């Protein structure tokens, strides 16, 4: 909810800036004009991030994805774009405030996990059952894109990006569903962990929560490709795909054994000054 309010406020302030620019000239407009003279065109945009933070490819231990909620994740971006002379080529530098996240519910079989608690507790083993994961990471992202104008309306872009995660959470629950006998009595759950490895002592798991927020990596990089459609003189719609190239956890982090890569699509609008 908080996120929605922030978005509304930001959009409102953009609108007021646009409204002002129509009536009188101020410093901002002069700066924009000066930039435009040098060939840099400024734009601001807003969109939704939709995607997953996922191992790629999905390991065989993941047997089913039972639930997926993309959540509401906003990206706000300001960028400068410059065309190289009369060629269709250009460059775009941006800064983006965004969150990337999702919730999943997966069924796993013989999934190795390891957890070290701050108080010294240590759990290792092969888990079979269900895992819920909630990811919500906030980034300041700096994309550097090459732009190719196909025609007056369409353009495509591609390039690397660098992200700094200033706030992140990665938490969830390993759980089991009750199994009932024909009399309706609970006789067990469909989840268990085996100590150390598949030969270890077996313990059925009703629910155990985890929180690896403190272990998340602060810097990410990846590549971004996208397309933009200029619907009006000042307004365009865009879609892009951001593919993370380093995992969200450091490589020596053993609680989640496979690397999880953020792969997100953004869908939104730009205002072109």
């Amino acid at each position, binding site marked *: 909810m908080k996120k929605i309010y922030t978005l509304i406020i930001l959009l409102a302030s953009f609108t007021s800036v646009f409204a002002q620019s129509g009536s009188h000239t101020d410093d901002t407009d002069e700066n924009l004009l000066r930039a435009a003279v040098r060939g840099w065109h400024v734009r601001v945009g807003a969109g939704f991030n*939709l995607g*997953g933070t*996922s191992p790629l*490819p*999905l*390991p*065989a*231990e*993941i*047997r*089913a*994805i039972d639930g997926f909620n993309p959540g509401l994740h906003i990206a706000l971006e300001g960028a400068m774009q410059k065309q190289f002379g009369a060629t269709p080529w250009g460059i775009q530098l941006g800064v983006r405030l965004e969150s990337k996240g999702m919730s999943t519910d997966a069924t796993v*079989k*013989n999934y190795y996990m390891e*957890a070290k*608690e*701050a*108080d*010294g*507790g*240590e*759990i*290792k083993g*092969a888990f079979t059952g269900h895992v819920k994961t909630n990811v919500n990471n906030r980034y300041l992202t700096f994309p550097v894109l090459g732009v190719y104008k196909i025609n007056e309306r369409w353009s495509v872009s591609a390039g690397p990006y660098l992200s700094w995660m200033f706030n992140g959470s990665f938490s969830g629950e390993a759980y*089991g569903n009750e199994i009932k006998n024909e009399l309706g009595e*609970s006789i*067990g*759950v469909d989840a*268990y*962990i*085996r*100590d*150390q*490895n*598949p*030969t*270890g*002592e*077996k*313990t*059925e*798991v*009703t*629910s*155990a*929560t*985890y929180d690896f927020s403190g272990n998340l990596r602060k810097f990410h990089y990846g590549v971004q490709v996208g397309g933009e*459609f200029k619907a009006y003189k000042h307004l365009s*719609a865009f*879609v892009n795909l951001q593919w993370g190239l380093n995992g969200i956890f450091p490589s020596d982090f053993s609680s989640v054994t496979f690397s999880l890569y953020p792969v997100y*699509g953004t*869908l939104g609008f730009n205002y072109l000054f």
Partner: protein
Amino acid sequence: MKHFLPLAFLGAALTFSSCIQDEPLNAECDITGIDSLWLSNHKAMIIGDPIVTNTTVSVTLKKGSDRTQLDPKFYLTPGAQIFITGEGTPANGVVRDFTAPQLYTVRSEDGNWSKDYTVSFNYPRPISVCSFEHYALDASGKFYQWYEVDASDEQNPRRDYWATGNAGFAMSGMAQTPEGYPTTPNPLGVRGNCVCLRTSDTGAFGASTRMPIAAGNIFIGEFKTSQAMLFPRKATRMGLQLVGGEPVMLIGYYKYTPGEVFYDKNKEVVEGRRDKCDVYAVLYEVDPAKFVPLNGDDVLTSNRIVSVARFENPEEPKEWTKFELPFVMKEGKTFDRERMDNDGYAITVVASSSRDGQVFEGAIGSELFIDELEIVWK
């Protein structure tokens, strides 16, 4: 544009779900039970249920029955195979001599894992004096377990009659050595070793599973590790059909120091409450054809209880102090010797460092030492 975007996301979702790989072969290699047909064919010679742990199978046989040519058949993890340890020949239903315990090896369907099982067929030995001299590390080498010894059964003397919650505590990952577990051996007994029960902190894992403390406990029966998290009280299956007569007295020695701070089940401090230990024995009726043990939920309340000997007002002696607890018959119950001869009774003896440990209340650090427990039979 309008139509293109939803399609793109649908495409992405399909790609995502098509990424589920083929199911790998099973990696587990368990004996999950003894074949029910085999059991019903041997009903006349077997007492109670076989006890199957992660590495052992033990069956109690009626005294005098022949165990030199038995061909037990086991249920295994789907796809797993069972062999005579050291030999490559399949061993399910193969005749073996169980005068001494026999070893089996189970190999997983994917071939990557295997596990050895010790399978024993034992004659019962009624509980008498328990001195806690016999203990060993469990198969994982993480914690201790206690057993009784039947010296008359030369090649197969070990009787795993005692159980503890140590295997459940192992899940918390809080103990790095066997000495860090709630139930440990101690050399300073009344005579020889004794057992030390200590209420312990289960840490973050325990808190996340709403079991913030673990009382040190030891009891006659079976600890069903697999159910420890789901039904922590039902997992303590108390009692075995090891009755040697009508029990009249539970005798033993104890020392007790309560922990400093008492916690309730939400791990909130309870001011002014002092921890107390608990020692009791319960004799109860069982159906010889279908053994259902009492458990942590009903061990003191079931209507199958015949008599109870319980320490009502334990104190905090720093030196070894003897206790003598008489068995008190429940109203309307009698002891029937014929029923006993038909294995119609079971008995359990329970000791715990926190009296309300079964509901996860107690003081971390409470320590109960127990030695020379004895049941006096009439």
